[in-house]
């Protein structure tokens, strides 16, 4: 059932014109940024060569590119998550799922998996773009893998939060703005918190991504992302049950 719902989500995404527009816009921005970073690297390369231990091409280009992708996803994911439940409830299609022999858990996991698979495909172009550099230079595969893993976990947490906000309202626009406000709020709170042990660092997904971004896979960060996603998925399941209970 989870697979069936995930495939339905994917199908609906791919037949919607706005999806292709978002895809194209994201690829354009990422490609632009990639080329700009590459150009900047080529400009400073002669000076870098004079350093004793110069930063390589992966650190100079891949890390900032992944960081930009993480920020862009923060703004993009709410545009997709808003549809998941809020739009279904507004269009009255949710009653099809509620009257079907399928548990709330499966509805939530199916929707989560469907959008996550789509976003994995979407972000797969980032490492693909970077691997074109392998034609002219050796790459740090470890750093790339850490960034890719971090980006996936980060995307998962964004989707889980967006899905929960989407379950709270019947207005997709409110769901999008709500999720964006929360994600941007967490990011900004993390940015302005100067104390190293500030609680804002602990709860900001983007803060936990920074270790991955510098090539460090810290189990605490991995656990944070899994917990963050799980909590919001559980809240969404609870919300759907409450919908049945309280209307």
């Amino acid at each position: 059932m989870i697979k069936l719902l995930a495939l339905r989500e994917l199908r609906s995404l791919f037949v919607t014109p706005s999806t292709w527009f978002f895809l194209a816009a994201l690829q354009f921005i990422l490609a632009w940024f990639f080329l700009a970073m590459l150009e900047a690297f080529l400009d400073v390369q002669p000076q870098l060569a004079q350093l004793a231990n110069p930063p390589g091409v992966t650190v100079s280009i891949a890390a900032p590119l992944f960081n930009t992708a993480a920020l862009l996803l923060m703004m993009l994911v709410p545009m997709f998550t808003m549809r998941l439940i809020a739009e279904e409830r507004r269009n009255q299609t949710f009653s099809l799922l509620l009257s079907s022999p399928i548990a709330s858990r499966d509805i939530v996991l199916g929707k989560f998996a469907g959008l996550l698979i789509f976003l994995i495909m979407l972000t797969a172009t980032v490492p693909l773009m970077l691997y074109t550099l392998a034609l002219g230079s050796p790459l740090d595969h470890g750093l790339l893998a850490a960034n890719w893993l971090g980006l996936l976990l980060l995307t998962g947490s964004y989707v889980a939060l967006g899905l929960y906000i989407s379950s709270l309202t019947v207005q997709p626009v409110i769901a999008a703005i709500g999720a964006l406000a929360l994600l941007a709020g967490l990011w900004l709170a993390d940015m302005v918190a100067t104390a190293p042990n500030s609680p804002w660092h602990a709860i900001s997904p983007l803060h936990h991504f920074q270790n991955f971004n510098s090539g460090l896979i810290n189990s605490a960060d991995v656990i944070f992302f899994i917990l963050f996603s799980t909590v919001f998925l559980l809240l969404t399941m609870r919300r759907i049950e409450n919908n049945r209970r309280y209307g």
Partner: protein
Amino acid sequence: MRAHILGYIRSRSQLSTAAILSDQLPETTLSAHKLTRRFGKRVIVHEVSLELRRGEVLGLLGHNGAGKSTTMQMLTGCLLPESGEITICGIDLLRQPTLAKARIGYLPEIPPLYRELSVDDYLTFAARLRGMKQSDVATALAQTKQRCGLEAVSRKNIGTLSKGYQQRVGIAQAIIHAPDVIVLDEPTVGLDPAQIRDIRSLIRELGNHSSVILSTHLMGEVESICDRVQIMQEGKLIYGDTTAALASYGGEPGHLEDNFIRITETQP
């Protein structure tokens, strides 16, 4: 009196045919006991009890806001009742929702259509969602499209179809998995007279093998397809009998519409 007896014989003969057809399944397909539902302090449905037998079409009548749609949402598991019990073919809907819901087909007031999908894709999804095996879907899909007159539009996107066709797709998703209980909330709204005639004969045909419960405002619909009627007012069931009995309410044969208004106006 004559009409009453004829109606009774008609419903009994259908019941007995259906009983022969289904010797293993329980005869009562849907049973709801004292369903109550409140929204805030307002009681929307108050101690509604219903029973539906195989081979029977039950019409749920009532003015707007009488609680018909809320009752149907509870019968299909979309909304939990505050108190009361619902069993579908002997399975408790509240305790074993997955098992019970596989036997229900539901068309809400607004058909739950994914407008971006094609008719084929949508109906396949609906069938699989109700637990049909992949291998059985193709046959069921072809049969349902034929029954609902959807063959010509099977590859079209639902969003591009006319209201009448969308309504038919809505009915098709409710019957594709051959459910024992079919719940239809105003199934002929927005259709033209020819489509209404087709859909009515389809519902009558469905009623021969399954149980159908439908809500409607159209008395012609009740007269042509319902074996029994239940009238709801302000969340309560105020009348329940065969269609023929409603037609001869008060001792004299008359229009269903007049009798319906008499019943709803005389009740407190």
